[in-house]
């Protein structure tokens, strides 16, 4: 079996963590490994994994491949994949690779499966594991078709680091596009977002925006408490859809956007710990917690969704009071 590990390089030409993990997935298949890299520069990336056991290193490099643009990235991937002639092509599920993987697969006449969480050879066949219906069920699949192009999720495979000096065979690819990348718009340094490197995910639910005892909304206080906990723990901030929707209508916390949404229509972050506050723990929200290992929740309702086997600990208490005290203790 011929296996191609195909990835883009980052700024400076090195490989990112997600790419090194995808290489781990490709190596795990045990076939004849070829490495294909594309980007502005590829030598540094190839050197970082030179001793990974690959028989060949292929590369496409140049200024036109520096940014994540469909037309140029797809042309680079297509050229590398055709030169490699692999049976299985493994790519990382980064935003850049995910943007082109399926289109490249179609150009190659390949079967395509994305966001795999497992990839192994079982009984002489390649078996892929992925989730369906927003992490509600997990399946194992096989394919007859070759090539088979897959992307693998981050955090599921061991990253490979095998530095050395690689000899990269550079391919000439011309790429024209009507699209121009004009820049990256990053959140302000103090903006609170879902940050994958944080240990703790704090999720703010709709209760923060609802009327409290006395029939009064305490939005300013809610904002201060949430931001205070974020400041004290450097944790990642997520939200339920209902609170984000309230915020979008100007009715709740102004720093929440759809980018914070966790669950059925939001993200599925991977953090060691998750703390849900004022969130009812209904299934459409909790599917976003599939990969959170330790889960705790604060809610006034002792029979809320978290109590139904979805959290390790449910504290039946007023989140305003508890979070205030937690912030004091952590300062």
């Amino acid at each position, binding site marked *: 079996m011929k296996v191609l590990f195909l990835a883009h390089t980052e700024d400076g030409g090195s490989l990112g963590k997600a790419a090194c993990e995808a290489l781990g997935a490709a190596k795990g298949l045990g076939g004849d490994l070829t490495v294909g890299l594309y980007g502005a520069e590829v030598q540094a990336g190839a050197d970082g994994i030179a001793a990974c056991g690959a028989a060949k290193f292929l590369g496409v490099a140049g200024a036109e491949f520096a940014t994540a643009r469909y037309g140029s990235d797809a042309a680079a991937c297509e050229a590398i994949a055709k030169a490699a002639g692999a049976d299985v092509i493994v790519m990382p599920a980064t935003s850049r690779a995910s943007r082109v993987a*399926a*289109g490249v697969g179609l150009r190659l006449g390949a079967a*395509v499966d994305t966001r795999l969480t497992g990839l192994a050879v079982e009984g002489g066949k390649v078996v892929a594991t992925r989730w369906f219906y927003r992490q509600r069920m997990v399946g194992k*699949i096989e394919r*007859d078709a070759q090539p088979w192009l897959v992307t693998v999720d981050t955090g599921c495979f061991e990253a490979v680091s095998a530095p050395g000096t690689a000899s990269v065979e550079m391919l000439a690819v011309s790429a024209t596009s009507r699209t121009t990348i004009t820049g990256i718009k990053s959140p302000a340094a103090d903006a609170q977002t879902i940050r994958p490197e944080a240990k703790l995910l704090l999720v703010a639910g709709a209760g923060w925006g609802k009327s409290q005892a006395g029939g009064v909304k305490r939005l300013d206080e809610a904002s201060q408490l949430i931001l205070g906990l974020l400041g004290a723990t450097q944790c990642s901030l997520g939200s339920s859809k209902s609170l984000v929707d309230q915020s979008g209508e100007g009715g709740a916390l102004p720093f929440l956007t759809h980018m914070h949404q966790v669950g059925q229509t939001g993200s599925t972050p991977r953090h060691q710990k998750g703390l849900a506050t004022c969130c009812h723990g209904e299934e459409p929200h909790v599917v976003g917690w599939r990969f959170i290992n330790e889960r705790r929740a604060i809610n006034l309702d002792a029979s809320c969704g978290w109590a139904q086997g979805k959290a390790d600990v449910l504290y039946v208490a007023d989140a305003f009071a508890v979070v205030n005290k937690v912030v004091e203790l952590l300062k």
Partner: protein
Amino acid sequence: MKGLQIVVLGSIVPDPLQTLEPIVGPTGPALKNEMMLPAVLDPWAGHALYEAANLAKKVEGKVFLVALGPKAKLQQVMMNVAQKVPFEIVVLDGPAGGFTDAVETAKALAAGVEKIPGLDKSRLLIFGGWQSASRGTGAVLQMVGEMLGITDQFQGVDEIKMSEDGSFSVLERIEGGSYQQSTCQGAPAVLGWATGNLPEPPNNPQVGMANMRLIMPALQKAAPAPLGGEGLRFQSVEVPSQRRETRIVKNASVDDIAREIADWIRA
């Protein structure tokens, strides 16, 4: 640019509040009581549809929805969706579940797009969700674009701004809460939408009446689109064991709860 043709690709998914259970059907895995489960328009397809309608209003364009799904279920869902924004529909009668193959789905949808009367690819924008609540591969839009010869593609889009000359700028989600900003010289292009920025439009019975005059005939002449799943085999599909032994802490003081949480966070 005036007169854009915005084709939204989207289908239906089970209502997210429903409990989903996989079963083995005659052609592979399926959902238990799939045809009985209440369905909704896929959330990302919904965002794409509302953004399409918003853009069409600005550029005097037209919105088409190409939907692949069981037509009886599509009819139920369209009774509600039709009241949101004006569009015409092309119905492909086939499976809409999560266990279908992305390439087969893309082929059916691309054929559906090609069937749109008066399709002008120089004015064509393909919209859809960058993910779905069923299979969630994020693959179909790219493939449809390739099949239609469109190589200006954007995924995770939250914003599009059109210029007078037909060019447009796009914000695409990337890692770390950032956006990649791009400009494109104009249609044709493929845009896979994240959530966008628009709320769900309120129901408008007049829009619904106008839409349904076109939707009902389209449903009646829905083209069959069987998806065979050739070469795709499922070894297993299961709901993972996820029930935790929840410890419920009641009647504890705020101080005790806060101390326990603080210790847990620090650990």
